[in-house]
């Protein structure tokens, strides 16, 4: 096999499309432990909410694999990579040779050891379609649901099941919700909204002991009865295959800006990797779907023999909860430009003539004539991504409202009169 891809999500699709930009014929094999046609992983909460369905959540059309000449082995796990022999071994006993390999193994829910957790029968994670379907089968309109972890996965899970259960309670060791994407006061806005719809929070606390249907908190001693438990504490990148093969691994698989690992002809992309943040220069795990696709695409182009680098990865998120919508990107350091009219919240973080990051919150359905804080946010994202000097643009104007009018006529001519 010319190309073998382990995994069947956004990074894998990016790789297939990247390979096919260069090589129309080389055989591609996708091996995945998941049995489903490729689906948008973040859509599992929208599936439970009823805003999408199994058909519409397909990330690519039904003919994606055949059209791209991709063979699949679904429901099969890769158990070992032999880097010298250029082979992988699978759970169904096959040894498959590759010329180029992509590891796009994603991440798995991390479940820390907690006293009595093994006595809880109704416990779930929320990471894959199968885990969402299992949770869906367990909830009823009478369910009291306890979610451990008030991050992106936990909160999105809550929105997905909200109308289908009796109550939802969160416990998180962190003092705020969404610590990975919000600062203190923006986190209060979202938490307040969630409390308005009746969701309860125990923040800055953790479960000391579980019984089958109760959780006793360590700090407060509060006893929370529950019927269904969701564990959304965090995720761990799946690095085992590369690590065991002798590849370089930090917190996740180490890759360069072509997505090559330290092992010859072996690439990695997506949530299983760590890469350089274009703003801070720090190496970190930036486990979001757009980055997974772009890394996969980068890997694919290189696997097909064309040198292609992508080094503009930054953390960024677009996500909504109960009518509030958040668009955020970059790092929250430096001076702050801040406006807040009670509905539209905007914070821009800048220093050393550069925009470092932003948090924008507005209503998903703004009032008639109202421009939400997140309108045209991509202009900010691009300023961050490109490291545009703020002294080269009218930042005062752009800070108020993102627009190309804040750029020079020459830049505008390039943007609107050219190709990118």
């Amino acid at each position, binding site marked *: 096999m010319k190309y073998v891809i382990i995994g069947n999500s*956004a990074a894998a699709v990016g790789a297939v499309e990247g390979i096919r930009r260069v090589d129309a014929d080389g055989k591609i094999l996708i091996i995945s432990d998941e049995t489903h046609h490729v689906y948008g992983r973040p859509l599992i909460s929208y599936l439970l909410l009823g805003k999408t369905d199994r058909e519409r959540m397909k990330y690519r059309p039904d003919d994606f694999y055949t059209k791209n000449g991709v063979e699949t082995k679904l429901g099969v796990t890769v158990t070992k990579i032999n880097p010298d022999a250029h082979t992988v071994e699978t759970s169904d006993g096959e040894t498959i040779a590759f010329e180029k390999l992509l590891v796009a193994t994603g991440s798995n829910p991390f479940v820390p050891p907690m006293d009595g957790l093994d006595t809880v029968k109704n416990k779930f994670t929320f990471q894959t379609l199968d885990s969402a379907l299992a949770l869906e089968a367990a909830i009823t309109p009478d369910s009291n649901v306890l979610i451990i972890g008030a991050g992106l996965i936990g909160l999105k899970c809550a929105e997905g099941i909200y109308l289908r259960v009796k109550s939802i309670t969160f416990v998180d060791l962190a003092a705020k919700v969404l610590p990975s994407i919000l600062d203190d006061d923006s986190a209060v806005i979202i938490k307040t909204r969630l409390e308005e719809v009746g969701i309860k929070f125990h923040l800055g606390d953790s479960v000391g002991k579980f019984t089958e249907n109760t959780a006793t908190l360590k700090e407060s001693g509060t006893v929370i009865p529950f019927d269904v438990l969701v564990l959304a504490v965090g995720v761990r990148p799946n690095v085992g295959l590369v690590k065991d093969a002798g590849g370089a691994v930090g917190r996740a698989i180490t890759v360069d800006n072509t997505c090559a690992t330290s092992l010859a002809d072996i690439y990695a992309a997506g949530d299983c990797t760590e890469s350089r943040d274009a703003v801070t220069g720090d190496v970190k795990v930036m486990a979001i779907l*757009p980055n997974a*696709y772009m890394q996969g695409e980068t890997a694919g182009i290189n696997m097909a023999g064309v040198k292609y680098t992508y080094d503009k990865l930054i953390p960024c998120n677009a996500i909504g909860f109960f009518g509030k919508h958040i668009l955020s990107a970059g790092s929250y350091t430096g001076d702050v430009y801040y406006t807040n009219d009670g509905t539209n919240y905007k914070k821009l973080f800048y220093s050393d003539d550069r925009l470092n990051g932003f948090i924008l919150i507005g209503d998903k359905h703004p009032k008639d004539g109202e421009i939400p804080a997140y309108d045209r946010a991509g202009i900010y994202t691009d300023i961050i991504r490109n490291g545009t000097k703020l002294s080269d643009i009218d930042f005062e104007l752009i800070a108020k409202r993102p627009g190309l*009018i804040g750029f020079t006529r020459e830049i505008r001519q390039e943007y*609107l009169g050219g190709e990118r």
Partner: protein
Amino acid sequence: MKRVYVNEKWCLGCHLCEYYCAFAATGKDDMARALKGVKINPRIHIEEDTTDKISFAVSCRHCTEPYCVKGCITGALSKVDGVIEIDKNKCIGCYTCVLSCPYGCVQPTEDGIVQKCELCVATTEGTPRCVAGCPNAAIVFEER
């Protein structure tokens, strides 16, 4: 491939392109009837500074390396024969594309999903309506 290009110095700031764009989206035959009493939400926008007398139209660039398509979490955005299209049936309105577009050219709709310029692929004339309706050739559709 033909693209919409903007000649800033020719823009009169008349906003007609916005109305032609909104008209195209209605699928109707008569512009006055289609838009009478309607608050338009076009896919092309005039940015202007009336004191400095600057105005220009901004709409999707149909990028060669489109961040909106690459970042779309549903696969609703795709590039078909050079045109970036949105499958409104698949879009769930996460606004990752709004977060990604360098030009601010993907916009939320009242339904909570997104819309963008699709070069009037649904119309039959072959030239986008904003271009055809521009009185001063400030927007053109051509190979460069």
